[in-house]
């Protein structure tokens, strides 16, 4: 066979040989060798293409398309094979990278952390009362006898003082002795002394009495409210407390019972019971025939106004107070006050709140 004498049958055979070699190539290196052997500078197809120039026109007319067709088909086969091999290689690599996606994650810190129920309830109270125009006032835990008792119309030696088991500090050289506040009412005194009416504040904080059992701890939390202006009366107080109870206990309506009672700093004074139903240790509010005492309240005593520099003929107002820990227990169903202060992470984890569950009236206090 001469150079000019390449037979059509040889072209066909070369094609079938090359296509077989392409499909036999196991990886990209082998495929590249086939490509170089066929289409490289001295490849078999390249050699054939070089012969075209020396052919007679007739011969070229016959064999030209055959050789060029051979080049295109083999080239295409190599390209296809390359893609297939690349994809297989990627799949193999990805398969080798497989991990066990069922492995458990660490919990997000914000899901683990807890805010104490007392803090949460103070935030709830603040949300409700700030909506009614109340500011939040605070004062020191260590108080004078004057602010804790005398200015609040507890006469010296009056049995009402004995209702408060007071913690005292040592007597000072001038005969006075400081104490741990037995209620947050001294904050009301401080507010009235430092601020001109109209006054609307709530005073949450720590309070202390020398008492310890399932429902009493030597330290506990109270929130008190105070309104002083020229027109606010008992009817307004009832409304505020009803609104508060509905919002706090998250019920549509709730019956409340106001019973006359006695506190030295209010006159008239009342204790307030809230309607409830007790069901196997659970308390439901806004239904049932039982009453549960939740707070004390009344119109600010004229003597207290006078002691705080306000004329009781010009100014009037009301105050109320309740246990934060107690209303937290009632709402969230804890049964032992002492556990609030034991820092047992099991209890805190169960009764505490997630940091991002911030109580708002818009988003729900406890949702």
């Amino acid at each position, binding site marked *: 066979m001469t150079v000019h004498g390449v037979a059509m049958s040889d072209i066909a055979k070369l094609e079938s040989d090359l296509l077989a070699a392409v499909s036999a190539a196991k990886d990209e290196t082998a495929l590249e060798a086939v490509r170089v052997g066929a289409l490289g500078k001295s490849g078999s197809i390249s050699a054939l293409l070089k012969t075209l120039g020396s052919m007679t026109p007739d011969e070229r007319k016959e064999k030209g398309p055959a050789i060029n067709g051979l080049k295109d088909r083999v080239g295409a086969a190599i390209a296809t094979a390359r893609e297939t091999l690349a994809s297989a290689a990627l799949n193999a690599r990805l398969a080798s990278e497989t991990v066990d996606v069922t492995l458990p994650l660490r919990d997000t*810190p914000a899901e683990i952390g807890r805010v*104490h129920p007392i803090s949460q309830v103070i935030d709830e109270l603040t949300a409700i009362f700030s909506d009614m125009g109340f500011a939040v006032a605070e004062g020191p835990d260590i108080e004078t006898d004057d602010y804790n008792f005398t200015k609040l119309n507890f006469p010296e030696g009056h049995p009402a003082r004995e*209702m408060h088991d007071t913690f005292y500090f040592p007597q000072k050289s001038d005969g006075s002795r400081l104490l741990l506040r037995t209620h947050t009412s001294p904050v009301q005194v401080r507010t009235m002394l430092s601020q001109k009416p109209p006054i609307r504040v709530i005073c949450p904080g720590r309070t202390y009495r020398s008492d310890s059992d399932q429902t009493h701890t030597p330290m506990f939390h109270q929130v008190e409210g105070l309104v002083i202006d020229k027109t606010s009366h008992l*009817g307004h107080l*009832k409304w505020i407390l009803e609104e508060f109870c509905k919002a706090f206990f998250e019920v549509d309506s709730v019956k409340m019972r106001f019973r006359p009672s006695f506190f030295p700093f209010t006159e008239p004074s009342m204790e307030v019971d809230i309607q409830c139903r007790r069901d196997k240790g659970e308390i439901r509010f806004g239904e049932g025939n039982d009453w549960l005492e939740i707070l004390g309240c009344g119109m600010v005593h004229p003597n207290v106004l006078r002691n705080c520099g306000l004329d009781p003929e010009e100014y009037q107002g009301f105050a109320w107070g309740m246990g934060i820990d107690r209303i937290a227990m009632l709402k969230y169903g804890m049964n032992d006050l002492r556990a609030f202060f034991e820092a047992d992470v099991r209890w805190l984890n169960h009764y505490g709140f997630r940091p991002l569950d911030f109580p708002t009236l818009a988003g729900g206090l406890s949702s």
Partner: protein
Amino acid sequence: MKFTLSWLKDHFDTVASLDEIVDKLTMIGLEVEHVEDKSAQLKPFVIASVISAEKHPNADRLRVCMVDIGQVAKGEKPIQVVCGAPNARTGMKSVFSPAGTFIPGKNITLTVGNIRGVESHGMLCSEAELMLSEDHDGIIDLPADAPVGTPYVDYAGAAEPVIEINLTPNRSDCTSVNGIARDLGATLIGDYRENAPKRIEGKFPCPVKVTLDFGATHPLCPAFGLRLVRGVKNGPSPEWLQKRLTAIGLRPINALVDITNYMTFDRGRPLHVFDAKKVKGHLTVRRAENGETLLALDGKTYTLDTAMCVIADEKGVESLAGIMGGEESGCDENTTDVLIESALWDPFNIAQTGRKLGINTDARYRFERGVDPNFMVPGLELATAMVMDLCGGEPSEILVAGDPTPKELVIDYPVSELERLVGIKLSQTETRRTLERLGFFAAGQGERMKVAVPSWRPDVHGRADIVEELVRIAGVDKVPSTPFPRGANARKPVLTTIQGRTRKAKRALAARGMTEAVTWSFVSKREAELFGGGKPELALANPIAAELSDMRPSLLAGLIASAQKNADRGYPDVALFEVGQIFKGDKPEDQFIAATGLRRALAKASGAGRHWSGKASPVDVFDAKADAFAVLAGAGAPVQALQIVPGAPAWFHPGRSGTIQIGPQNVIGHFGELHPSLLAALKVDGPLAGFEVILDNIPVAKAKPTRAKPLLELSAFQPVERDFAFVVESKVKAADVVRAAQNVDKKLIVGVTVFDVYEGTGIEPGKKSVAIAVTIQPRDKTMTDAEIEALAGKIVAEVSKRTGGVLRG
């Protein structure tokens, strides 16, 4: 304050049911705490006749009794009961309960028993077993005429409902059944019956004189009434009286003593009776002398002082005024001449003395609240009548020392006051009727009334008190709930700066996986001292327990103890925090709000305990630092301006702790690993890392006129990052390297981070390599290589100048 329904009805005519009465009492401020109605439970306990009581064949101390509860007359057999009571005897009347009865005093239900071979079909009972008294000396021994077959409670009157009122300390008038009836009468569910005492003519002058002798000191006895009744015969009081006293938990003693107790509860008028024959000479009411003693009626001897008031005769102290009488001059069954005392005492002094000596008596309870001065003499008349009625005798005239007459109080009451304070109106008629039924005297027409306050209402001083009387009788439920407008003020934040910081600090720490604890504000003295506290002025005079004695100087003490308790319960990896008050002194400005956190063992912020994703490492100083900075950022501190100085107070690890400050004058907090000696002193295990931030010490940001944020300028040019590694002395602080680099050009250099710190092979001993990445942000144009190189050269020079660092080759 306890009383029975029939007792109330002595003073109160009503057709109202028990429930109505109880409800009304509560709604006028006499809160009914408890209504005890034993009748249902005690129905099966019937009066029985013991036909025979023979010795048990197999037991010396037991008797076999044959009992009749009325069935024998119907031809049935007596019931056989084995009884261990020493007083069981043939022919006695007692109380029997058949098998199947619940015995309240023993909390068991009786069954038919076999006791040492003899069947027993029930039980003969003591008072204790019925829970009628504490008496369990023997079975109830009833008079021969007790009706067999009748329930014992009906016979004894013990079945009557006993109402217990939780009396508020202002209502001294309601320490008596009479006073409660008067209050109820104002509600119109019945009518109060006054039962005014009659005057009893004395047959002879009272032979014992009384002197009130307080010298120049404050008098403790405004008035003292005394009367002798001679020729009395003292003994057990009649059954009706005994039943009433028993029903309210008092123990009948003898007629004279029972009369004083009855007067105390019926009229709120405590009295004292002396056996006149045991009193020597005349009586003096005076202050006790220091060290004087009295053997009181409770059998105890009290040592008295000059702050206390006593009644003495020529021998010495016979009675502790207004609180308790003396044993020596007490009345017993041999008393024939009795001196009855009805006096007034200084309420404050009575409270003080009672508290000091630890004596609580029904007399003290009333005198310290204030008794009706106008009833001092009528009370004595009433007691005399009772004595003569129950014990006979001949009364002397009444001797009164001092003057019991109180100052009359008339209140100028504007009718509009009720509407002003309460929001309701009452008619003239209704106002007047309520006040008069309560014993006030109301005069005047129209807007202004004059209201005279009765002598038994020491709690009523002014208009507000009158308002209270009117509203509690009208019913607080009649006051309409009135919407309370928010007001026209703009809505503003209601929290103070410190409250806002407190709230944010809590959420910030909880968001780092920490759990909020609320621990006691007090710690032990030792704990206080370990954390820089322990000042004497912060130690409670009367702590509830030794380990809760001092106000806490730091929240760490409570958190460390809590962490250890959790570890002891099996939860070693805990991260706790608290935001609360600490005390540096006893003035209001010495109280600070601290945010404090503590991590224990493996409680890292990235997750507590072991996990497949990485090796568990113990908590360290950087966990504490990160927590502290979370608080600072959350609370709005100027984090860029904060300096970190190595070292912290003694309770921290000296080499692994830091102080956060803005200049040495304003320390904001500390962080670090806790000192091993502290852990040893507190007997707790570590590792522990913690921090304390004083929220009050964070400077307040200047108020801005607008809430708009500073204009954001976005550069059009690519930032360039250059790395440098400096070899510095080991003691050189990384922060100084960073600051030196940063300060080279505050405009172009927008970030410097430390990405490697290395000590070891390749670095000279005593030195370390600190590698920083500096981000350069071109502002106006792209920087040329030459410009960047020039800046890099300045950085190297500045770091070298400030820290002695050499660029690592």
